[in-house]
């Protein structure tokens, strides 16, 4: 299918102490809101919309949780990379 071909995902580990807390979630959501299609965060089979702070918070990602980041459209590769960089930098904390 076309969609699966276009889908790209990356596995990530949350390294900052507080996990995906409000500020971190807000930073991700801001980046995700620039995307043309959907950006997803997946943890333990649960998939949430990365453009929603509340949705991200409900995933309850504490430090050392493993998550997968997924974009529906290749066009959003930049967004994906930006978020990956943000997470890997520990949100600059």
């Amino acid at each position, binding site marked *: 299918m076309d969609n699966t071909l276009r889908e790209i995902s990356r596995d990530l580990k949350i390294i900052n102490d507080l996990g995906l807390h409000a500020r971190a979630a807000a930073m991700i959501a801001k980046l995700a809101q620039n995307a043309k299609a959907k950006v997803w965060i997946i943890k333990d089979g649960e998939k949430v919309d990365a453009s929603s*702070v509340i949705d991200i918070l409900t995933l309850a990602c*504490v430090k050392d949780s493993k998550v997968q980041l997924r974009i529906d459209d290749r066009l959003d590769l930049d967004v994906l990379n930006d978020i990956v960089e943000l997470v890997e930098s520990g949100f600059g904390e």
Partner: protein
Amino acid sequence: MTAIETEDKEMRLYGIGASPGICIGKAYLVGKEGVDVIKKYHIAESRLQNEVNRFKIAVEKAKKELQGIIENIPQELREHAYILETHMVLFKDKLLYEKTIETIENEHINAEWALKKVVSNLKAMFHNIQDSYLKERVDDIVHVSERIMLNLVGAETVNIADIDKRVILVAHDLSPADTSQIQLEKIMGFITDRGGRASHTGIIARSLEIPAVMGLDNVTAIIKNDDIIIVDGTSGIVIVHPTEDTLKDYFRRKINYEAYQESINRDGHLLAETVDGFSVQVMANIELSEEIASVIDHGGDGIGLYRTEFQYLSSAFFPSEDELFEKYKAVVEAIAPKPVVIRTLDINGDKAIADTSEFDETNPALGLRAIRYCLKNPDVFKTQLRAILRATAFGNVRILFPMISTCEEVREARRILDEAADSLEKEGVVFKRNIEVGIMIEVPSAVIMADVLAQYVDFFSIGTNDLIQYSLAIDRDNKDVAHLYHPLNPAILRMVKHVADVAREKGIKVYMCGEMAGDPIHIPILLGLEMVELSMNPQAIPAVKSMIRALKVEDARRLMKDILKQTDVKDVLKLLQDNYGTIISEKMYTE
């Protein structure tokens, strides 16, 4: 969701029984901003777009407000503003923003209700999160939604003074200002997260004889509007979602309690004289002139403490001399020829009157209050004194100055009283000049200086509530230390004895008007100290009188010697129980 399954299960919450009695009814929550009544109403199809726009505008306004707040944060504190930046993002979060719009459209309900519904669903989602830090992030959502809600509700916020339903009030805390606004007599009972038995609100509840349980911690988070609850103010229990059986049981207890109250009230009019002929005047503490009926019904021998703060708390301006006079006259006339002890203003007047507060005191109990405030504002003081003096023409009035801690304060207060009297004389007003003037003994320094203070006054009135608070360094509203607050603490007993001894030696009268006087178990001690006047909440009078009639002053005197040798509250209590246990258990009105 599990929350729904457990929702209707009976739940018992334990707090401090602040005012006895039982009530059963619907809960009514009072929010921080006043009454948290969010109305739900239907929106017609044709008006849906309007309603959605109203919501969008409220969000925009809320965002603008918050943006303004962020911009005004000084550069060096910007670092800490991140949480507010997060809130800015939350305003348009689809789970909040779009979901609310969706709810308005799908359910045809008003924006406030839709927002409330969305937020409570989000709260439920967060409830299941294990990590406590992340779990608390729900607070951020609540903050944001409250900011929107305020913009939605706008000027339509319901005033606390408008509550006039037969409901049980559920509040985080009720300040004296709140309680002065609520028409408490229209309410069945109330329960609060904070406060204790001796808090102002608890005292008012008891004087109005409505059941209250306080110090419940987080009852406002547990109980929802319209939940059926049982309040047992005698044992400090609140039952949420009671079962049929529990309801039946409590209806029975309620009937028993009320029948018992009636039975002791029947003898309320008899004299309070001990078996060996020592007689005590059992008087009433009141706050409102409306309580006169209750004083008379319960057989009060007068009013031993008329608190005058209410008129100051309930209006936006200082009451005029005439307004005060009319109230005092009504009370004095109704009780005459029995005495009425009018206590002068016992609050921080700046706090009481809206919009005049210049700064916040960090420790108001030790601040500019009572006589200190009055001496600093002699005009306010003189207005009240003139009103009291004018009322003397209509009955038997005594004046009582509160919070005296130095001799100078008494001299100064008497000087201003003289000035007030002089001014009335000059105007040819009829009043009695030679009335009794007394002071409250409620600050430890006044206890120690009692022998000196005695030369300036006709009587002492021991105010145990504050005396205990100041002597034992206990905030009686702080539930973590409230249990240490005990009138039978040996230090308090020694102070009371000292004051009683000094008064006898100096030939002035000594009375007691604190909570201590209203509990039958304390009566042997007060008799042992030969207190000739006790003042208490009106409904406590019959039980105290019946206790006095069962005792001998001779025995009480002898017991007092043993009591003063005790070092701990529990030993004092044990002595009282060993000697008077049978009388007390026969007369007591527990359960």
